[in-house]
């Protein structure tokens, strides 16, 4: 995978608007390391052990692109500046905590990083999926009670400062 000038621009733009202080990316032999002025390391490249503790999806996904394998097909930051919340594991997607309860979020809902946006059920185990950033829900991309794959985009969030 070769990095073009435009790709680099997009990466820089992403990092500039994102809430972290330090960013590193490795693709093949190329390594990029960016630090905001006075910033200390704030982003860990390790995957969180559980859904609740997982780092912000956008961060995690950018880091994961350093794997020496086929690149992800799912766009994590779409061109209109929306950020994807992706499925941390394969399972059944639920928009609400119970069948008769209102959904966690609707299009237009304001979310804080720790807000649950949906649930992924795996073998009767409910895994809360958090927004991972502050913003407004722009789109819900999966149908309720359907199977979603690992890494599939579930919700798109328009980031807010």
């Amino acid at each position, binding site marked *: 995978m070769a990095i073009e000038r435009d790709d680099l621009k997009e990466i820089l733009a992403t990092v500039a608007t994102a809430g972290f202080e330090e960013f590193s990316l490795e693709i093949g032999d190329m390594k990029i390391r960016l630090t905001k002025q006075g910033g200390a390391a704030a982003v860990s490249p390790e995957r969180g052990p559980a859904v609740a503790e997982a780092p912000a999806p956008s961060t995690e996904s950018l880091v994961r692109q350093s*794997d020496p394998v086929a690149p992800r097909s799912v766009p994590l930051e779409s061109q209109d500046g929306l950020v994807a919340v992706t499925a941390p594991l*394969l399972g059944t997607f639920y928009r609400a905590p119970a069948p008769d309860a209102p959904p966690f979020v609707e299009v237009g809902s304001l979310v804080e990083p720790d807000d649950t946006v949906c649930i992924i059920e*795996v073998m009767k185990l409910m895994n809360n999926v958090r927004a991972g950033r502050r913003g407004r829900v722009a789109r819900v991309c999966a149908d309720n009670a359907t*199977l979603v794959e690992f890494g599939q985009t579930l919700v798109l969030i328009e980031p807010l400062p």
Partner: protein
Amino acid sequence: MRRVLVANRGEIAVRVIRACRALGLETVAVYSEADRGSLPTKLADRALCIGPPRSADSYLRSDAMVMAARGTGCDAIHPGYGFLAENPVFAEMCAKSGLIFVGPPPQVIRLMGDKIAARQFAAKLGVPVISGTEEALHSAEEAGAAAADVGYPVLLKAAAGGGGRGMRIVRAPGDLREAFERARAEAQAAFDDGRLYVERFIERARHVEVQVLADDRGACLHLGERDCSLQRRHQKLVEEAPCPVLSDALRRELLEAAVTLARESGYRSAGTIEFLVEPARTRYYFLEMNTRIQVEHPVTEMVTGVDLVAEQFRIAAGSGLSFTQDQIRVRGHSIECRVNAEAPDHGFRPSPGQITTWTAPEGEGLRVDTHCFEGYVVPPFYDSLLAKAIAFGADREGARTRLLNALGRFAVGGIETTIPFHQRVLVHLDFIESRIHTRWIEESFLSTEGGVS
């Protein structure tokens, strides 16, 4: 049975998908992020990403497999080999979720998965086992006493065994303590079970295994034997069928013992019973039973004409075997070479990366099972098997020359493979005359290779 989840990757996933197609079954492939765009995901009717590259987070996730199967309307799961294939808890989980596990019942997987229990089971049926301990050893002292009993050299083995891990040859009492601690640590790390037992080590023995098939209508039969004596560090590299050195009498005994073991354990599906044959070829001993389809199953298919994976599906669907023992004929000879992404001239060091050239040989009496193609990136996370090159001949020499010829036309670029190693083995006089044993590659071939080109 209508739709099958293929809970594996690589060449065996491709093999299972092809069998499903032949039977008119729909397929769902699963893949880790490292296998995105791999051949099985393209061949299957549908493909799902189940997790990140690490096996523990993807191919070993039984919950994800069951979810994927149920969420896509599958009624059966084929586990292939490795990963979840011999996990009794997974087989039980499938049954509880209303899914057909294409393999044996969980209790047989559990029995045979404990190598000590399997040994006792065989001994009880009157099948010879190598003299050794009947129970797990708790300390190096216990191991020392047991080793003195059976006599050196001895082999330390893991109760949860497999793949040569937790296995150590000990030639003198002074070496036992260190070997015991190392083997125990290795077994603990690999299987989360550090139990060891000890067996007398038989020098220059051959590894001969019997393919069995059993259904739930009472049919239990064998499809002849395979010789898998060519190994490096307990990993099979070349396999053939039939075994070129068995007398008819010993072959008959071996086959009968295998069928007895399978029948008495309540076996169902395809399975393999492994034996050790002494150099004098008058005695054989039960080693273990593998409750899955094996990597080297194609050599049996070549000489019997039976599609073993298709039979696994028929048995799992309750249709029963489509033939009887009398209808099984072993004809001709077949040899298989495992083409791995390894550098044979550099201690078989793994060689992952992008395949820039890939031309697999084709021709009559030739079969190549693979998931590779030009441009494919061999990920560093899994085993190194790229392809199995399998040749059939009217006799052993016919199969050998055909395979040698085929390997010469097997062009792989971008990564290192074991093809050159196989070419040298196939022309070695010891192989041609089949004067080989399980340690021949390490003790004889690799140590004298400087003089052989």
